[in-house]
């Protein structure tokens, strides 16, 4: 393939500032030099190398500081005006490794939320920013509402169970909730961004330091993908947090969902684009019927076309979603609820599109698509993991209910 991904999958490069373009170029170099060029080493010693490569990206290249406030040593990309840039950067990271992308996505969501609702918690913002400036890889973890358990009635967020409850006590807010499954990284997270419910059942977000003595972690959960972000169930046992660590604004939880759908959409898109590259190389070099290159066989070409179409459409949707969420998106006249609905709807569509592209492309690669050596299967497992995590529960049912509620004013679903 002799044309660039940017050329093939048209992007609004013109809308991007010079700084953003510079960061994207740097990340692309990191992806190609540090990861994509060394896939086999990465495969064989994934856990150790993940840490190494993620540290280079997050610390040496400064991506951990990207979303920190500008005046405090960061680059200020927590600002909503930068969401499209963040999504583009995460695509570049996802092209190399989805686990690293998800780690950074949770990091950027954390600072976007924290700074958006910074009123009354300047001290917390400052302290957290300072800690992210340390020469230490930070691992945040998000715990979202999801499936509930029979016999354990919980407050709900749009039908999804909120497993953690926060109680106001004289000593301050106290969290409780057992066996909560975070999105990823529960085993080692140094900060939890947990959706919980206050006494009246209203959803809010609690920021809980990982070393809080009230957190109990289960053993490592083996998962399909995102294997570098070892996960574990967590329990909050009378976990005391500070008042400023509790974000009660009603728009906070929808905003967290919105950002995660956008950012994780970026990660999966990147994985899809790298899969496209792998498949392109395969279809150039393999033959069918003894001598015909795969890509010149009409049936195979039609599969290749489906793959390209799904990735191209996902990229366009991601850029539209980013525009919709950014300040210029206000022109769309959408309130927080509208942005949330579009985000979950488009987010699900992007994950589905990328998953379909990889599934179809693997058909052409035969068993090689399944071998770790070719790396296609890693993207397949990672994106499927992200897709299932974002669905929440019941496949797309909650997303469909969100969509119907917004467009048709449903009240009972």
């Amino acid at each position, binding site marked *: 393939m002799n044309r660039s991904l940017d050329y093939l999958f048209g992007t609004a490069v013109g809308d991007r500032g010079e700084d953003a373009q510079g960061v994207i170029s740097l990340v692309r170099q990191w992806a190609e030099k540090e990861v994509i060029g060394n896939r086999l080493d990465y495969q064989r010693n994934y856990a150790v190398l993940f840490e190494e490569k993620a540290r280079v990206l997050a610390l040496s290249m400064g991506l951990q500081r990207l979303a920190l406030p500008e005046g405090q040593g960061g680059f200020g990309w927590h600002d909503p005006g930068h969401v499209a840039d963040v999504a583009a950067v995460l695509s570049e990271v996802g092209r190399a490794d989805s686990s690293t992308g998800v780690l950074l996505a949770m990091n950027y969501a954390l600072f976007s939320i924290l700074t958006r609702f910074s009123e009354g918690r300047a001290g917390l913002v400052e302290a957290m920013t300072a800690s992210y400036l340390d020469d230490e890889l930070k691992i945040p973890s998000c715990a979202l509402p999801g499936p509930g358990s029979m016999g354990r009635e919980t407050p709900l967020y749009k039908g999804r169970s909120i497993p953690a409850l926060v109680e106001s006590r004289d000593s301050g807010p106290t969290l409780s909730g057992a066996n909560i499954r975070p999105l990823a990284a529960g085993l080692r997270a140094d900060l939890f961004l947990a959706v919980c419910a206050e006494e009246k059942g209203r959803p809010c977000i609690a920021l809980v330091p990982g070393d809080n003595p009230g957190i109990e972690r289960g053993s490592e959960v083996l998962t399909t993908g995102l294997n570098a972000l070892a996960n574990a169930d967590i329990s909050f046992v009378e976990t005391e947090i500070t008042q400023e660590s509790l974000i009660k604004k009603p728009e906070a939880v929808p905003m967290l969902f919105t950002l995660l759908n956008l950012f994780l959409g970026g990660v999966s898109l990147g994985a899809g684009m790298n899969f496209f590259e792998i498949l392109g190389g395969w279809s150039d070099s393999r033959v069918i019927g003894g001598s015909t290159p795969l890509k010149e066989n009409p049936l195979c070409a039609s599969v290749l076309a489906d793959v390209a179409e799904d990735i191209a459409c996902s990229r366009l949707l991601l850029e539209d979603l980013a525009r919709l969420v950014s300040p210029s998106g206000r022109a769309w006249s959408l309130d927080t609820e509208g942005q949330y609905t579009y985000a979950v709807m488009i987010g699900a569509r992007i994950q589905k599109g990328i998953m379909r592209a990889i599934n179809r492309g693997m058909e052409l690669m*035969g068993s090689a698509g399944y071998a770790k050596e070719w790396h296609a299967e890693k993207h397949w497992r990672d994106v499927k993991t992200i897709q*299932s995590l974002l669905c929440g529960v019941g496949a797309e049912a909650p997303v469909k209910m969100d969509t119907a509620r917004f467009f048709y004013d449903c009240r009972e679903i």
Partner: protein
Amino acid sequence: MDHFDEFSRPLEYLSPLDKHLRTVLRKYIEQEVMPLRRRYDEDWKEHALIEPAFDRIMGGLGLQKALFPQEYGGWGLAGSDYIFRFAYQLCEELGRADTGMAVALAVTFWPLLVIHLEPYVNERLIAEFAPMFCGTNKAVFAANAMTEPQGGSDIENMGLLKGRTIHTTARLEGDQWVINGHKLWPTNSGGAASLFGVPCTTRPGSADTDDFAFIYVPADAKGVTQGGPYEKAGMAADKNGDIWFDDVRVPVWYRAHGPGRDAEAFYQLISFGQVASTAFLTGAMMNVYERLYEFVSTRTYRNRPLKENDAVAGVIGRIAGDIDICRILGHEAAMMGDRRNTPYGLPLVSEELVGKIRNIKDFVSDRAVENLGKAMDVLGCYGPDRDWDIEKHWRDIKIIQLWMGGKQLCQMESARYFFNCETL
């Protein structure tokens, strides 16, 4: 529905062994395989956990003897009129626990069928290989070394290419065949198999099926080199690797049947492989149903069981409905194979039978890939969790869609029959 066994299948198609074998096998599997299968992924190379389970099922229970005639210590099932249906039930039961184990067992039958199925029976070779499989309580594997580095699926496209693209050569020298070539990906390679069935050409580039040779090669023959197993997305119980044949010499009578008949006997394997593949899939799907049933009954949406929500019910209803339909189709495919010697049946080498069975396998593969992905999504954040088993099946069954020429070859074989295509 009270039990996964109630998924539909034509009861009049069941083999005489069905009830007994399912009972015994299920007990073995639930004791020996299911409790350990979540640890199989890490065991892909050593088979420290997997091998003892194989020993008990293949050697101890004796399944590896099933094809061989009773006079050689076997069960004589290759000569029965229900070998396809027997294989279906076996593969479905094993597939419910672990499709990797199921394929390793079924592929052991695969090259042996070339010399067992009427009208292509080679008594001398049966007698030669019977002790290897019938005289031990340890698991013994065979492999069909088909795929080659370039254009792997072409070898399975016998209908059109007739072996023209095979690079592995067989040269006759005195009373020996001398084999040279490189194969990759066979199930039970990577050091597992004791015996290979090797499709070769006696005249490279020839599309004359007389030049296609199917020759047996013991894995310990001089000149055979095997690479270690590949690391894959799943199917840890199925080892795959490279095999190099470097001036490997075997007796002349290790060729299955001779010019022309080798190609016909080999072509019969395609449909057997597709029927077994369909059985792996329906077995896996039924276990996914079991696990999904537990999840949607014990987990909630809006504080009610997931399964009682209309929208979720729409998703899981479709999944179960598809399993039901796929199982009927799978049994129909097996029955097509078993009708081969009846006046109303079709020979295994007929384009109609190959096309129709490939079509069923393609359809069931697609349904399985889609439904298992959906099932993972139903579990949401628990979908990728190995403890729920669904993700294991999701990873494992993807390769079933990809192997044996993959989806596109299935589509072409179907088109070739249904539309009388001549150049595909």
